[in-house]
């Protein structure tokens, strides 16, 4: 095997792991980083996005639109959840954990009861391309591109838009923002909806490549939490570098010793990062910048 092929395959595996980590974590990171809420129903928002996407695709909606629809529906569900449950628990962070965990159980079991144990898939689009004796799925490159696009989009949203400024103000000093006329309740609702929508987007994007069952969200959960814990509270300075670091660890360990060691590598990396950097990578970066 020549060097080019080897390099490409290493890059491909890294990109694949990176995309999975970023897409599964960014919704969680927005909700945790901006609002301090630990959303244990994150996996169910992912599942919701996947189910809506696949249902829409079965109904004849083109796949890209179906994925968008999955994200939008998840976001709307997130807004409702924020208004009905989360809003009343902002001063009680531990209670939000219990509440969102309860929502997650209701989501999984409710889906099982209402929609049955499985759903037929839609198939992965775009086919494959060969590089030096291997063939790769094109859709995996799309996932990587989407991960980068999501990071870029979030950066633009929070830095260049009016909503972003209000959101950051609300997160920094809520009562001052409120005094300046920012509807902080609305900002919280929108932020939570955004996080849920991003989870739904991850579900929609991965739906064509996965088996559709009510418990599918749990396969994202470990990676999502690990990324957020390593990254810390900031979405850009945390999630992106954390995902890059963990993707290298995971892809390397998996290719050398197999999937089990990939998972062990992830968890060991988290333990080391928490021990050395209790506030995550973003804690380190922000302290240096300050």
């Amino acid at each position: 095997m020549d060097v080019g092929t080897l390099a490409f395959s290493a890059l491909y595996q890294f990109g694949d792991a990176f995309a999975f980590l970023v897409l599964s974590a960014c919704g969680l990171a927005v909700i945790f980083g901006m609002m301090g809420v630990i959303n244990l129903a994150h996996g169910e928002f992912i599942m919701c996005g996947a189910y809506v996407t696949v249902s829409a695709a079965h109904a004849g909606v083109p796949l890209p639109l179906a994925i968008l629809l999955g994200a939008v529906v998840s976001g709307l569900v997130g807004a409702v959840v924020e208004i009905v449950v989360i809003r009343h628990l902002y001063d009680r962070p531990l209670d939000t954990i219990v509440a969102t965990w309860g929502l997650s159980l209701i989501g999984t079991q409710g889906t099982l009861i209402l929609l049955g144990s499985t759903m037929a898939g839609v198939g992965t689009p775009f086919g494959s391309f060969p590089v030096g004796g291997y063939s790769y799925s094109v859709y995996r490159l799309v996932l990587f591109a989407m991960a980068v696009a999501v990071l870029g989009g979030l950066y633009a949203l929070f830095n260049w838009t009016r909503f972003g400024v209000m959101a950051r103000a609300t997160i920094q000093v809520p009562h001052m923002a409120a005094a300046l006329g920012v509807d902080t309740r609305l900002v919280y609702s929108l932020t939570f909806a955004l996080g849920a929508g991003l989870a739904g987007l991850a579900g929609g994007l991965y739906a064509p490549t996965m088996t559709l069952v009510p418990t599918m969200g749990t396969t994202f959960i470990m990676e999502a939490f690990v990324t957020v814990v390593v990254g810390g509270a900031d979405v850009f300075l945390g999630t992106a570098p954390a995902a890059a670091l963990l993707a290298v660890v995971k892809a390397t360990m998996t290719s050398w010793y197999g999937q089990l060691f990939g998972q062990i590598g992830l968890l060991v990396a988290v333990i080391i990062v928490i021990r050395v950097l209790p506030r995550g990578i973003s804690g380190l970066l922000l302290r240096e910048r300050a």
Partner: protein
Amino acid sequence: MTGKTMRGLRAAALTGTLLLSVAQGFTPAFAADPIKLGVLEDQSGDFAAATIGKVHAIQLAAEEINKAGGIDGRPLELVIYDTQSDNTRYQEFMRRVLQRDKVDAVFAGFSSASREAYRPIVNQFDGFAFYNNQYEGGVCDANMVVTGAVPEQQFSTLIPWMMEKYGKKVYTLAADYNFGQISAEWVRNIVKEHGGEMVGEDFIPLGVSQFSQNIQNIQKAKPDFVVTLLVGTAQASYYEQAAAASVNLPMASSVNVGQGYEHKRFKPPSLKDMYVTTNYIEEVDTPESKAFVAKFKAKFPNEPYVNQEAENSYLAVYLYKQMVERAKSTKREDIRKVIAQGDVCMDAPEGKVCIDPKSQHMSHTIYLAKVEADHSITFPKVWADIKPYWLGEAGCDLTKSDPSAQYTPSNPPPKP
């Protein structure tokens, strides 16, 4: 015996008689008290897709039996708990059905991890359990009857057939727990016996859903076919991802299609050229099978698929009925005397099946199911009456002794 326990016993006896007389007062036909059957299966969680059908099959059989007058005149009552694909739930509910519900027999378990979780409890309370599932084989335990197929039935047929058709280089992709590890050992041994070569093995932790690296490993090893022993709905994502990366290799399996009906869940042609040895799937084209599927769909119109384990569970209820009626007792030892006669057989939807007295496992008709490009099923070969011979030949004889252990080819029963 101490005075305290004597008093306790007397009190228990007294309340017992009281309860009985009260019951007799209300129900004159009390003579036929029900036979209780515990049902511990996963109705939620990662395995639910493959196992909800087992519960329905047991309900179907129980309804038929009760309509036809019950077991020896006694109605069959089901005590059903959802074990949630969680091994600790199995232990909890196994204690509950044996201690509190006092069932006569238990039908329990999908994953081998769950079976090994509850088996010590069945032994501890001297219960009687049926494991109605295909698995990696080797359980030599007088408290257990296994109605599912085992490796000598599924792999000794499948692997040589595949090697002859596609070639001798084999790659195994298996779930990383006792089922996958022991099954992979079987595959390894059979490949070696037939002059083949293992070009790779990958073990995947349960719950993993991303397979890019494994797909690349397989492409690097260039096998003639891949043995997929993937378990659970998360791992089933492999087929879609392998198809998207154009792996295009034939696949062989003992668990897929027959349990998780992946050919119905995934978009064609991701499971093209998948070969599975199974003792039953709903596509089996015999009058008995068609009648069974028709009955099943009539009672459960929304059932997505009637799989191998549903049939195993269904026939197990009838086998239990036959054994109780012949033993005229629900006591395990009386039933085992019937099993020891070696002629506990029935005509199941798959064909004729018999319980082997030495291992308390079952002979099966083994169907080689091939998934076509449009995900329809054809049967290139059928092996009739394949016996679960390995345990008996290796030295497990439950008619003589009960080691209550699980053996593997590398860890066989000790020679006497």
